[in-house]
């Protein structure tokens, strides 16, 4: 059984309250950092821990913090990215809903390290009930003196605010998030400058994912070196995985990085195998934007090694035979799943969420959706597969922000691994049933 350091206490009754959280060792990292460490020492521990950003890109967190510009007399900010909107990803919600103080604690400790007097939690608009939970936790923390002036009698004062987004996926992109936080339209900025130099209101800013910030607490408590012993190689620590799809036990699991994918899908401790005794067909391992892999390639790498839940192992083979850990949105599909239908869902999403600033993404995402829709309604030709391939290749790498890639990769991977399915549908000229959408739309309405 792998180690857990983030949500091991999620089943304790009342853990969402400060009292119970504190009784279970909560806020120890704030005490330790503020009373016994300098800000740079905190950053050093995070560096030693090997922690990598849990928002999707996997950039080393300690390194990101050390890039933060520190000009005299200029405010610095920590911003928590709680916009979680990638289809298939719901781990931040779980963490915030169950153990909100884990995030607040991390915000204080991280802000201390960065010298940020003010921090913001930018939360996805649809998570309105989580917003209430976080707001309540912040109020409790102020009451108990964990936030506000001279925390624990030290010189360090800190204010933490929550800002709710309008429900746009693009506002999860860090610079769009900052624009939105400033009260503007959530368009990604053109980089450079990077947020570490000119972020919120032009001041140096660090943007980190909810899980990244929460992981700072166990790192400070146990020490960076100790944390680095969890996991495998450069994938240190634990990761929250949002498991969904045709599995017996969907949900959020904290795994130790390096867990074999096969064990994760089939063991009783995690997903509990494929539902209704069906066979595994494919997995999208890291949220909707990462390449889909067929069963054989997700269980074993191209050279026959067991595939592990780690940054390195999942990306083994590049995009030809590998994928990415991404945000940890693990979507499992059984043998009855239509890859084309699934791709239509994704394509529709990215088309809907493109901000429209740059031409390849604005025009290309809609075009791809329309062509995939032809497969759905039985009017596609075989040549449409090549056209789709060409369009995605002309979006990838030519856009302002990575949403362009996020839209292109799933199309590329579906064609790469399941081309025959597209051809078969095109030949059959049959309508693919998507009536579940209509039902879904009704429910939403």
């Amino acid at each position, binding site marked *: 059984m792998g180690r857990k350091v983030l949500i091991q206490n999620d089943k304790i009754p009342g853990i969402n309250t400060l009292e119970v959280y504190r009784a279970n060792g909560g806020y120890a990292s704030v005490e330790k950092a503020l009373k016994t460490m300098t800000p740079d020492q905190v950053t050093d521990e995070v560096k030693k821990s090997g922690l990598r950003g849990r928002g999707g890109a996997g950039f080393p967190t300690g390194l990101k913090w050390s890039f933060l510009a520190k000009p005299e007399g200029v405010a610095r900010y920590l911003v928590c990215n709680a916009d979680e909107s990638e289809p298939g990803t719901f781990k931040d919600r779980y963490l915030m809903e169950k153990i909100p103080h884990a995030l607040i604690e991390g915000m204080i400790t991280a802000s201390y390290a960065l010298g940020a007097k003010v921090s913001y939690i930018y939360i996805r608009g649809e998570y309105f009930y989580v917003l209430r939970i976080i707001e309540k936790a912040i109020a409790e923390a102020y009451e108990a003196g964990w936030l506000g002036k001279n925390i624990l009698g030290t010189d360090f004062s800190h204010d933490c605010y929550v800002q709710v987004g309008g429900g746009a996926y693009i506002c999860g992109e860090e610079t769009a998030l900052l624009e939105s936080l400033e009260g503007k339209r959530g368009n990604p900025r053109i980089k450079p400058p990077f947020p570490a130099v000119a972020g919120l209101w032009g001041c140096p800013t660090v943007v980190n994912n909810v899980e990244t910030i929460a992981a700072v607490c166990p790192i400070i408590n146990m020490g960076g070196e100790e944390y680095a012993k969890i996991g495998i190689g450069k994938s240190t620590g634990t990761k929250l995985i949002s498991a969904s799809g045709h599995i017996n036990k969907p949900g959020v699991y904290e795994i130790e990085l390096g867990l074999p994918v096969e064990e994760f899908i089939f063991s009783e401790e995690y997903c509990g195998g494929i539902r209704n005794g069906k066979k595994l067909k494919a997995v999208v391992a890291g949220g909707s934007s990462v390449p889909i892999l067929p069963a054989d390639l997700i269980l074993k790498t191209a050279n026959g090694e067991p595939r592990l839940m780690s940054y390195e192992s999942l990306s083994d083979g590049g995009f030809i035979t590998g994928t990415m850990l991404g945000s940890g949105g693990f979507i499992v599909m059984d043998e009855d799943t239509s890859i084309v239908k699934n791709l239509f869902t994704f394509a529709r999403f990215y088309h809907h969420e493109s*901000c429209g600033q740059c031409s390849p993404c*604005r*025009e290309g995402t809609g075009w791809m959706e329309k062509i995939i829709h032809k497969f759905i309604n039985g009017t596609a030709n075989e040549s449409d597969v090549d056209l789709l391939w060409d369009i995605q290749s*002309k979006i990838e790498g030519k856009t302002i922000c990575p949403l362009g890639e996020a839209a292109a990769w799933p199309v590329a991977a579906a064609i790469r691994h399941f081309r025959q399915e597209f051809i078969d549908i095109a030949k059959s000229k049959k309508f693919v049933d998507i009536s579940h959408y209509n039902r879904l739309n009704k429910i939403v309405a």
Partner: protein
Amino acid sequence: MKVTIDGIEIDVPKGTTILQAARMIGPEVAPPAMCYHSKLKTSGGYCRTCIVKVTQGSAANPTPMPKPVASCRTEVMDGMVVENFINKEVLEARKGVVEFLLINHPLDCPVCDQAGECKLQDLGYENGAASTRYEFKRREFEVIDIGDKIKLHMNRCILCYRCVKTADQITNDRVHGVISRGDASEISTYIENVIDNDFSGNVIDVCPVGALTDKTFRFKQRVWFTKPVDAHRDCKVCSGKSRVWLKGEEVLRVTARKDQWDEVEEFICNSCRYDHKKTSDWVIEGPSPVNRNSVISQNHYEHLNQLKLQVLKQQKALGFMPLDKKP
């Protein structure tokens, strides 16, 4: 800083972008730019037509940049090596961008006032494919008025953000110019209220396509039948340095002067643009420089009268009746 573009080396000051450096060398290496505009701060980065390949990042760190970059928003580094027209990958990618710009474009050039001075026409001509691969219905918007002098054909807009930046930078704190998202984005109608000022007409000049047009000029004449001259007048609001488009003695429209790259040299005020439409209002300096490849240069207007005579002569020789003399 030394930078090499398509094999030609040039020394430029720090802070110069690749596009600017390429323009210093000349049109033979300068990438096409639809959204960058030299007189507007923070313009560029949106259309992606100016993408180039950086095959060597700098002398200190020679690794190539993995993705093509927008040359208008990327500063040069010492020892950088850039490939534009000599790189197949770049040309292919640019062709893709042009295709994206055109899939939802109405291409109603025959009835579009911009035809003949349209950057998208040039771009399509140079980089586009002969036919479209897009088989769906094109996006459509209503044609609307933006103030009493400007028409917005949103169908033709390429969302270059130039008009938004213009309005933003010559008025107070304008932030929003675009409403909706993705391919439903549109230039907002409340731009009308916000840019109600002496310089609002400049959005027409910065628009690279026929999305924003001058209502006082609409459908009056194809540009290649008019004669642009550089002229000035004594103006209290702006410099008064304008371009006056003549047909015979008649002033058909007044615009800002544009440079070699079709970008406005100096913004002009609405009074110069709309209220001074008599030749006597202007001190005419001489014919405006027109690019040799522009269709406007086909109009040898220095010899306009002579030309008319020649046409008449030809028509006579061929047995045509002059139009106005038809029975």
